[in-house]
């Protein structure tokens, strides 16, 4: 197991380095072709040449290589790697440390993810198990039909409907009935409130979770159906074990392996959903920060945040792989 983990970690470091190289090249070429992102600092107004030069210098964009199309700008890349290695992820265009921005916004996104993951697992396991257990019955058809519907409804439509149709009357009613600081009023707030981070992220998180849960339901159903017809289940049944025991220990447990993998894979996809959710619900999370940084051409913030996200993704992948190996002994011996 130790060697397995070591191998995975080394691969991860390599992946991370590759991601950073690609990211660096893409932004470098974008700057060379599109012109100076330091201009974004000034918005509509035109800065004087000296102001521009000052801002370029401040954000490390003054290297002449950024003016030469095709130059890979190796120097600034190495400088950045060294700075990153020392924990210095630079600052945004306003001079705020990227690490500070991330430290402030990441907890909001993590809360969202906790709710989302919990929703996935709950809906996926419950509905998937029911559908598999009563295969071909109305319950199964109903669940499968619902998953298609949920899949067809984009998350932003769901959230827009919720925000503009549901929250306003419900929140108003809850405020007048229970007071503005009551749980129901907070749950149905039209947007996030940093003073009540869990309560106000709950329903948007559930909605985001629901919209991504269809894949889990089908995955759990498929994998449980496989287990139901598996030899070990037949053996267990023929031993006379109670059905309840067979389902819980041999079917549900085995079907959790692909689910764990899927959580890891869908994690990155959820970040895309988080951008939408955070934007609509005004949650100051990683998705919103990244979106704002891209819109505002804030190069160092984009690089810093994407690198940190890449680190998180790679770490999640390792955790999933290790969990996978723990759940299925065959994997670690390969």
């Amino acid at each position, binding site marked *: 197991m130790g060697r397995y983990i070591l191998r995975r970690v080394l691969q991860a470091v390599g992946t991370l380095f590759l991601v950073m190289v690609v990211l660096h090249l893409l932004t470098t070429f974008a700057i060379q072709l599109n012109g100076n992102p330091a201009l974004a600092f000034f918005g509509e*107004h035109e800065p004087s040449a000296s*102001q521009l030069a000052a801002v370029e210098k401040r954000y490390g964009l003054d290297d002449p290589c950024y003016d030469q199309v095709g130059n890979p700008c190796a120097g600034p890349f190495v400088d950045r790697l060294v700075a990153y290695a020392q924990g210095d992820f630079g600052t945004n265009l306003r001079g705020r440390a990227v690490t500070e921005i991330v430290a*402030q*916004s990441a907890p909001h996104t993590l809360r969202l993810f906790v709710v989302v993951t919990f929703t996935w697992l709950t809906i996926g396991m419950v509905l998937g198990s029911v559908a598999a257990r009563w295969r071909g019955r109305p319950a199964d058809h109903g669940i499968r039909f619902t998953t298609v519907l949920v899949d067809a409804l984009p998350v932003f439509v769901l959230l827009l409907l919720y*925000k503009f149709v549901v929250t*306003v009357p419900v929140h108003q009613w809850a405020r007048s009935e229970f007071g503005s600081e009551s749980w129901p009023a907070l749950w149905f707030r039209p*947007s996030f409130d*940093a003073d009540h981070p869990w309560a106000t992220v709950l329903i948007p998180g559930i909605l985001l979770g629901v919209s991504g849960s269809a894949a889990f339901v089908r995955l759990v159903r498929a994998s449980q159906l496989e287990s139901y017809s598996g030899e070990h289940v037949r053996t267990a049944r023929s031993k006379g074990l109670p059905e309840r025991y067979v389902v819980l220990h041999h079917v549900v447990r085995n079907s959790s392996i692909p689910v764990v993998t899927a959580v890891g894979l869908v994690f990155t996809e959820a970040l895309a959903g988080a951008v939408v959710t955070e934007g609509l619900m005004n949650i100051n999370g990683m998705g919103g920060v990244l979106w*704002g940084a891209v819109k505002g051409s804030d190069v160092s913030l984009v690089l810093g945040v994407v690198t940190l996200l890449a680190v998180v993704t790679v770490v999640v992948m390792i955790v999933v792989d290790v969990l996978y190996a723990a759940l299925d002994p065959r994997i670690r011996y390969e």
Partner: protein
Amino acid sequence: MRQARITTAAAAGFAAVALVATGCSAGGGDAVTEEPATVHLALNQDVGTLLPMDSNVDDNIAVLDVVYDGLVRYDPETTEPYNYVAEEISTEDNTVWTITIKPDLTFQNGEPVDAASFARAWNYAAYGPNAMANNYFFERFVGYDEMQGETDDAGVVTVEPTATELSGVTVVDDHTLEVTLNGPFAGFSTMLGYTGFFPVAEACLEDVEACAVKPIGNGPFQVDEWVQGEKVTASKWADYPLDEAPAFDAVEWTEFAGGSSWADFMAGNLDEGAPGAADLGDVESDPDLAERVVERPGAALTYIGFPLYLSEPWTNIELRKAISMAIDREGIIEAIVPGERVPADSWVVPGGVPGGETGTCEFCTFDPEAAKEALAAAGGWPSGQTLTITAGTDEEEAELFKAIGDSIQETLGVPYELETTEDFSSKRRNREMTGIFRNNWFPDYPVNENYLAPVYASGDPEEGNTNFGYYGAEFEEAIEAGDSAETLEDAVAEYQKAEAALAADFPTVPLWFSVSRSYHSERLSNVILDPFSGQMKLRPLEVAAE
């Protein structure tokens, strides 16, 4: 002297409002438990800083309006400036200005608000390498150029700035400041109420980053905390010595950074809301809301520019007139943004600033016949060519400019293509436009000059100004005459002549002015919108208990 007189009148007027306000709250709130009256507002823009020298978007300007006091403030109804922190602003020749500051004023940290505090802020803003957004406001000061240095075409600094202080700003004594401008400018004193001219404390410059997040102001409110990206909270400064203090206790601004805050307003969490296009249904179906709306003509002008730095057909004035008269401004506004814009037939907002008059543009009304005649006089549209219309990526603006293209195509038979691009600003700056393009101007201070000189004057007969390649000798002369006029009234009249010269040269096509509209909660009354930004003025606001 003129300025001093206005002060007294305005102060008296404001005192009356304040009395009414206090009277109201004392009578209405039968002293149950003293809940602090908090106003809940939204910051819809991305606010990067609260440093006065660097704040140039509506939202941070609105926050700083209650956190700092400037030398002058503007009457919210008439935009007329009056002295506030300044005791007197005087000049003999419009070039050398003497500013006296009221005694015994302090910052919220106890430091004195004196001549040095203004000089300190202005020097910091004017120093090029500090890259402050309001740097360009100091261009008229003697010594500005020495603080900018020089760069070559690639943007590499070739000459470092030789000065760190404006030689045109002298601290005469604790309460007297002398400013020398490059040349006469009659409108100088009206500029001084702008955010970029606020004073800063010494402690602020010692830690600029901290001060940008937690300002050390001299105004009636102090910022308690700004959790960046989330919210700004401010509460009343107990020792505020002047009289324009709001009648409520605290403000909480929630940041929405481009997202919609309308649902939060409708749900009762915010005291002010501005509906987006998608929310207009709510507004129409709610008669109660119609009673809580305040509207005033805005000051932002949207207009069309031509690449005059290219040759024909753009340099042909008849063609420009033809395009202008082919645009059905009223019809487009009615179809796309009803009630949200006012068709423009002048380059300066009429009634909004001194010298602004309606009807200075003769060719700004929709007249298909005249448009066709003008196009014929211009020799027709080059056959086989398509008119490119370039705008930014804002969806509503794109829709408006598509309608403009349709209007031109229908009237003149000129085929067009609409180009919406992220690189809009840089294309304009680098003179890469190949057709007509969108422009928007938003005044920084209330004189008609602000719509003219910063946009069209260049002093460069060869190249013309940066964005359009325009140069008008008569226009430049009139601006200069206005700058050196003896009184502001005379100056305004000269600037009006400059606008007339502009109308004759017809380098751009005025389209429409903005309309400011704001909905407010039932708790608020005496809601007045800022004539420039359209934002709610906080100081005169009255707030009932929650």
